[in-house]
C-alpha cells in the first residue's frame, strides 16, 4: 500500500477512497486492498488502467484512468486542413478505420454542403459495414480469448484477414486506409474488389455459424459470462452506453435506422436487441450484428449503381491526379484546395454515424477558413468505458477481464 501511495497520484487515490469513507490504509487486517490493473495488462485492450478496490476477490470500487494514448487529435485538427485530417481519423478506432473515414467526411460534407454521388455513398456503406464485421470479429475473438477460449481468436482473425484483403484491393492499404475523400471516395471500386467482397460474404456465414457453435457449446465460456456485468436499460441510456452494448440492454436504438444517413433507408435489415444487458447478451448481439451487416453488404453489392464516385464541385473536391497533370483548371483547383483548404461557410454541425462501437460523431465549427476552428470527436469507447465502474462492482476480479472484453473499448478512440 505504501508503494501504491508513492506511485499513485494523491488525487486518484483520494477518488478511490471516496467511494467508501470508513476505510483506512493502515489497517492491515482488513480484507480490502487496492489493485492496479494496467496500463500494460494484455486483457485491457490497449492502455486502459483500472484501479480496483477489492474485498477479498470481490470488487467494491473501480476508477478507470485514461490518457495513456492521448495524442491530441482535436488540437491537431484545428491546425490542419479538412483534407489533411482524413488519415488521422484512421488512428482513432484502429480496428475499423474505414468507418472513421466515412464518419469524418460525412461531417465535413454536411458542414460544406456537399453531397457525394450515389455510387460513392454505396461504396461508403459497403466499407462501413465491412468495417463493422471486421471490428466485431476482433471483438468476439479477443473477448473469447480473454475468458480462455483461445481458438476462436484465430478463427475470427482469419475471417477478418479476408476483409483486409478486400480493402487492400480497394485502396491499396490494409489497416490505415484513408479511402474516403470529401465529396466521394479516392477511387472507384474495382470489379475485383466487389467480387472479392461478394465471395467473402458468401463464405462468411458458414464460418460464423462454426464460430458460434464453438462458443455456444462451450459450457465454460457461457457460464463464465452469463449474468456478468449486467446493466439496466435506464442506467445504460443515462450513462451514454452506446452501440451494440446499448442494444444488448434492450434499447432498440441504431443511428442507421433512427437518423438515417447515406442510403441506409434503402436497405432492409433488422436491429437485433437483447434485454439482459450482460456479457452474454453483448456476445450474442455482436454475432447477430455480423449477420445483419452481411445482409446489408449483399444488398449493396446487388444494388450498387454505376456513375461517378466524386462530386463535381471543383472548388471543394480534389480532382483526380490524372486530370491535375493534364488540365490547367484542375491544376489551379488542386493548388488552391491543397494550399488554402475548402473554406466551408461559417457555421457548426454535429454529425454522427453508427460506428462499429457506437455513436461516432464529429462536431465541427467553421469560421469560414481552410481549417476547422474547433473539431470535437464524440468517441463511443470513451462513453462505454465510463460505465465500467457500474458494471464491475460486485463481481469477481476475473470477471473484470470478461467485462472489458465484452464492452470492446478501443483506447485509440477513447484517448483521442
Amino acid at each position, binding site marked *: 500500500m505504501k508503494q501504491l501511495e*508513492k*506511485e499513485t*497520484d494523491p*488525487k*486518484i487515490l483520494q*477518488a478511490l477512497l*471516496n467511494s467508501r469513507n470508513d476505510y483506512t490504509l493502515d489497517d492491515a487486517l482488513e480484507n480490502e486492498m487496492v489493485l492496479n490493473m494496467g496500463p500494460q495488462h494484455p486483457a485491457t485492450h490497449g492502455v486502459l488502467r483500472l484501479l480496483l478496490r477489492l474485498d477479498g476477490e470481490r470488487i467494491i470500487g473501480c476508477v478507470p484512468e*485514461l*490518457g495513456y494514448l*492521448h495524442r*491530441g487529435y*482535436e*488540437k*491537431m485538427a*484545428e*491546425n490542419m486542413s479538412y483534407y489533411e485530417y482524413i488519415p488521422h481519423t484512421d488512428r482513432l478506432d484502429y480496428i475499423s478505420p474505414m468507418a472513421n473515414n466515412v464518419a469524418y467526411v460525412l461531417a465535413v460534407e*454536411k*458542414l460544406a*454542403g456537399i453531397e457525394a454521388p450515389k455510387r460513392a455513398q454505396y461504396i461508403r456503406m459497403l466499407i462501413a459495414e465491412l468495417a463493422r464485421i471486421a471490428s466485431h470479429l476482433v471483438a468476439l475473438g479477443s473477448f473469447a480469448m480473454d475468458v480462455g477460449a483461445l481458438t476462436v481468436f484465430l478463427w475470427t482473425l482469419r475471417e477478418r484477414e479476408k476483409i483486409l484483403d478486400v480493402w487492400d484491393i480497394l485502396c491499396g492499404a490494409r489497416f490505415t486506409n484513408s479511402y474516403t475523400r470529401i465529396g466521394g471516395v479516392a477511387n472507384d471500386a474495382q470489379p475485383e474488389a466487389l467480387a472479392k467482397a461478394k465471395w467473402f460474404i458468401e463464405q462468411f456465414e458458414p464460418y460464423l455459424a462454426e464460430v458460434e457453435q464453438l462458443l455456444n457449446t462451450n459450457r465454460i465460456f457461457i457460464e463464465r459470462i452469463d449474468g456478468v456485468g449486467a446493466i439496466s436499460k435506464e*442506467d445504460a*441510456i*443515462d*450513462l*451514454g452506453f452506446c452501440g451494440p452494448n446499448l442494444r444488448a440492454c434492450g*434499447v432498440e*436504438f441504431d443511428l442507421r435506422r*433512427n*437518423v438515417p444517413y447515406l442510403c441506409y433507408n434503402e436497405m432492409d435489415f433488422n436491429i437485433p436487441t437483447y434485454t439482459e444487458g450482460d456479457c452474454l447478451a453483448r456476445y450474442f448481439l455482436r454475432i447477430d450484428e455480423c449477420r445483419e451487416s452481411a445482409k446489408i453488404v449483399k444488398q449493396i453489392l446487388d444494388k450498387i449503381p454505376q456513375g461517378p464516385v466524386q462530386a463535381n464541385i471543383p472548388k471543394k473536391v480534389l480532382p483526380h491526379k490524372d486530370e491535375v497533370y493534364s488540365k490547367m483548371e484542375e491544376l489551379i483547383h488542386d493548388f488552391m484546395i491543397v494550399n488554402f483548404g475548402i473554406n466551408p461557410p461559417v*457555421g*457548426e*454541425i*454535429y454529425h*454522427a454515424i453508427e460506428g462499429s462501437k457506437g*455513436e461516432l*460523431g464529429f*462536431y465541427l*465549427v467553421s469560421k469560414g477558413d481552410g481549417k476547422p*476552428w*474547433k473539431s*470535437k470527436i*464524440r468517441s463511443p469507447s*470513451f*462513453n462505454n468505458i*465510463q460505465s465500467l465502474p457500474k458494471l464491475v462492482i460486485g463481481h469477481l476480479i476475473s470477471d473484470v477481464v470478461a467485462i472489458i472484453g465484452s464492452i470492446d473499448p478501443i483506447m485509440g478512440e477513447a*484517448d*483521442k
Partner: protein
Amino acid sequence: MDLKTLIPQKLKEEFPSTEFEVSEYRDELTIKFEKKIIVDVCSFLKSDVDLEFVWCSDITAIDWATRKNRFTVVYNIFSMKHNFRLRLKCDVDESDCSIDTVSSVWQAANWQERETYDMYGIKFKNHPDLRRMYMPEEFEYHPLRKDFPLMGIPGSLPLPKK
C-alpha cells in the same frame, strides 16, 4: 407541432424571464442562453414528457480566443423519442471560468465535463469528481486553449517519479 418551434416555445413558457437565442444551421437547432439556468433547462428538457432528451451525446467547449465571452460550452443532446438532435450553448467568460455541472441530470456528462475541464480549464461547479481526464494532474496548462502552442510547452510534462 414541429419540434423546431415547439422546443423554443416550451422553453419560453417555462423560463419567461430568460432570453433564448434560437438559430438553425444545416437543419440543426441551436439554443443559446445564459449559463446560470443550465441545470434547470437540462432537467426540464430531459423530464418533459413531450421532449424527453434522455441521451447526452457530447459536451465540449469552444475557445473563441479574442472574444469578450471567451468560451462557449456546447451540449449536444438527443431525444430518442423524436430522433431529434438539439444543441445548447452557454457563454462562459474567462474572469468567471465556471458553469454548473449537469452530471446530476445525465450521468454521461460526468466524464464529458471532466474532459472539457482538462482541455479548456472550465470549472464545473458541484461536479462529483472533477479531475483531469487525459493529462496528468500536475500539468498546469489546458491544451485545447488557443494560446497553448501546437508543439506543446517544453518541460511541462514531468517524467514519472522514481
